[in-house]
């Protein structure tokens, strides 16, 4: 019995934390965010060197062949420094889609390019979850039409994986005729998502026509795990930044960390977050080892972490007082990352509704 990270995973964690902390002092985060490109080449290349872009890709396709929990260890590190790279779309969701639903030829074509970091993927599944401004993409014959919003990490992507209804997923190069990409700017400038519009685009369908249902489901699951891990890392850093700031900041001749109100705010933050780290670990483990338990635990983990994140982003900012509101300490980059992650791939109430359906509490 061992519930927790293995020694190897702890090493992995250490090396990625060191990498991101070295690469991303606040002034560089600020500088990268201002470019609004969603991908910093320097960091991306570093991740390629560390084999992170191929973390989920089997060795035969040039990857590291690790499991989801390993990937989450990396993702949490990336979240801790609000790292400006399209990791969730390209290194998590796209490989899961290709591995679950791709033909051998599709895997051989794309997976090595992903692992090598040469090709970046954006993944469009928003309308499978819920619709607001867009109806999603539909397939008629072998032609794709429609638009999809919030394509994950679609800003800097070269190729898109786009769901066309619940059973089809298309591989669409950004430069293909009929493709229009529109950047969507959220408050989080460190990652860039987009809208993709397809007009009469010829479909290269993942696994063939009507074969992508499982791939879409697993891609969404993987994406949710990734966003939750990113928030977990970002939110935990916010708590510790608040604690450190409170210890240094003095008002009325006392460190504000000695005021009970501030102490209790910090205690509440860590209490809200910490148990969800355990649930997220389990959900990631279940993703590989106990598929029957994965769906529900992922839904509960992301919704719970999103709620904790919302409380923490606000409370940690409050502990920082006026400094938290300014750009001087840059705390807002974390605030915004947590905020946007919460809304992507299903807001908490949508996830909880899915959880009710998944448990048979409600008709679908």
């Amino acid at each position: 019995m061992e519930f927790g990270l293995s020694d190897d995973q702890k090493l992995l964690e250490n090396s990625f934390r060191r990498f991101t902390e070295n690469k991303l002092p606040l002034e560089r985060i600020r500088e990268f965010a201002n470019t609004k490109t969603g991908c910093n080449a320097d960091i991306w290349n570093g991740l390629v060197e560390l084999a992170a872009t191929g973390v989920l890709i089997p060795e035969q396709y040039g990857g590291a062949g690790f499991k989801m929990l390993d990937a989450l260890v990396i993702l949490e590190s990336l979240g801790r420094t609000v790292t400006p790279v399209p990791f969730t779309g390209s290194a998590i969701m796209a490989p899961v889609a290709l591995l679950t639903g791709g033909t051998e030829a599709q895997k051989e074509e794309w997976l090595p390019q992903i692992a090598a970091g040469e090709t970046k993927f954006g993944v469009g599944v928003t309308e499978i979850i819920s619709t607001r401004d867009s109806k999603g993409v539909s397939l008629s014959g072998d032609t794709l039409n429609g638009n999809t919003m919030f394509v994950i990490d679609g800003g800097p992507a070269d190729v898109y994986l786009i769901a066309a209804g619940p059973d089809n997923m298309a591989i669409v190069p950004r430069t293909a005729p009929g493709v229009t990409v529109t950047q969507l700017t959220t408050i989080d400038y460190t990652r860039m998502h987009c809208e993709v519009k397809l007009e009469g685009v010829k479909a290269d369908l993942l696994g063939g026509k009507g074969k992508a249902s499982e791939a879409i489901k697993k891609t969404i699951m993987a994406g949710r795990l990734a966003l939750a891990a990113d928030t977990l890392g970002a939110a935990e850093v916010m708590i510790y930044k608040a604690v450190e700031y409170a210890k240094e900041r003095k008002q009325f001749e006392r460190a504000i960390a000695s005021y009970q109100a501030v102490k209790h705010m910090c205690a509440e933050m860590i209490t809200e977050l910490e148990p969800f780290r355990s649930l997220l670990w389990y959900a990631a483990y279940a993703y590989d080892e106990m598929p029957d338990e994965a769906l529900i635990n992922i839904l509960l983990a992301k919704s719970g972490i999103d709620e904790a994140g919302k409380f923490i982003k606000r409370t940690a900012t409050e502990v920082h007082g006026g400094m938290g509101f300014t750009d001087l300490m840059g705390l807002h980059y974390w605030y915004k990352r947590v905020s946007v992650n919460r809304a992507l791939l299903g807001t908490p109430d949508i996830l909880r509704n899915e959880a009710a359906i998944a448990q048979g509490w409600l008709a679908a």
Partner: protein
Amino acid sequence: MDLSYGPEYEDFRAELRAFIEKNQHKAPPAGMGMKHPEALEQDWQKLLIENGYTCRTIPKKYGGYGAEPDILKTVIIQEEFTKANVNSGLSGQGIGMLVPTLLENGNEEQREKYIRPTIYGEIHWCQGYSEPGAGSDLASLRTNARVEDDHFIINGQKIWTSGAHFADMCFILVRTEPDKPKHEGISYIMMDMKTPGIEVRPLVTMTGAAEFNETFLTDVKVPVENVVGKRGEGWKVANTTLKHERGMLGDPGQMLSRIESILKILQNEKLDGKRLIEHDMYRDRLIAAQAKTEALKFHSLRLLSHTLKNEEPGVSRLIVKYYGTTLARELSDIALEALGELGQLYMGSPHVRSHGSWQWRNMFDLGLIIGGGTSQIQKNIISERGLGMPREPKLAETK
């Protein structure tokens, strides 16, 4: 309970409405101007003062309208300009804080020199109170001034100086007697912003805008006659004005209009083909917030009534800031949450709603919860002054 204002006031209201109706074409657009007043604003201000619709109680000899204080008329003026969505004249810290301070603590020369151009928008003021190390505990401020040749020589740094980049003057708190206890060594000084040694840098906030500034002061020379009140009495001078600070009634009008805007969002936007208003959870949350907003609205009337009768409403007044700022943020939060991922889009993005103003609002609301006395400080005040609970006890000396 009598919610009518009586004939005198209804007449006043009717006149005011006619005035607005007739003159509104001359008014500059409503809204908080983050710039120095120009001719259009100044002319409109002049017209308002002449008719007694702003600076009502400032004596005629200093350029005001010279009326007796009458809070009901003040409320009516506020109500009618808000309802008509017409610019109600200049605001800002010169008119709101410096002028009352001069009236109470300034000398005759200072009043004659500064009040008229301030209320006519010729001199625009900024406030130099907070410092990076002195926020909630303002009296621990360290910007200092020594005296040389009948001048203060000021050194230090101020923060949150909104409008400093276009202000003509600054009223500033500085430590002039470093050896005295912290509340007794402070002076209140009027400083010309064109004096050499003042550097204003925009202070970017989480919203991405620079709503405030930092102001760095290096050997800034200010004539000693620019001190208001006595040297070393600046803390008292600043606090007599803080007492008068407006906005203590909350701003239910603004919140009611937010409810309207959110309602429109819920009625017009759809999630999975179903209007958001038909999703129980968003609707329920909006109505819970509406209840609090209506409560605040009538609570403000109750406080107004206390003021009219010169009663001290105690805890009822003390809760308003904490209640109002928390409620304001809850409202912007409802809008954002109902919009889901669309709510995360920001200024300039395709598909963004209301130009991203809900996100801006939500972040700025958090700033307001923090600013001017955090919620923690507010709760201290409510429990100590409102409920008679003990102040934070004095600590033993350490090390």
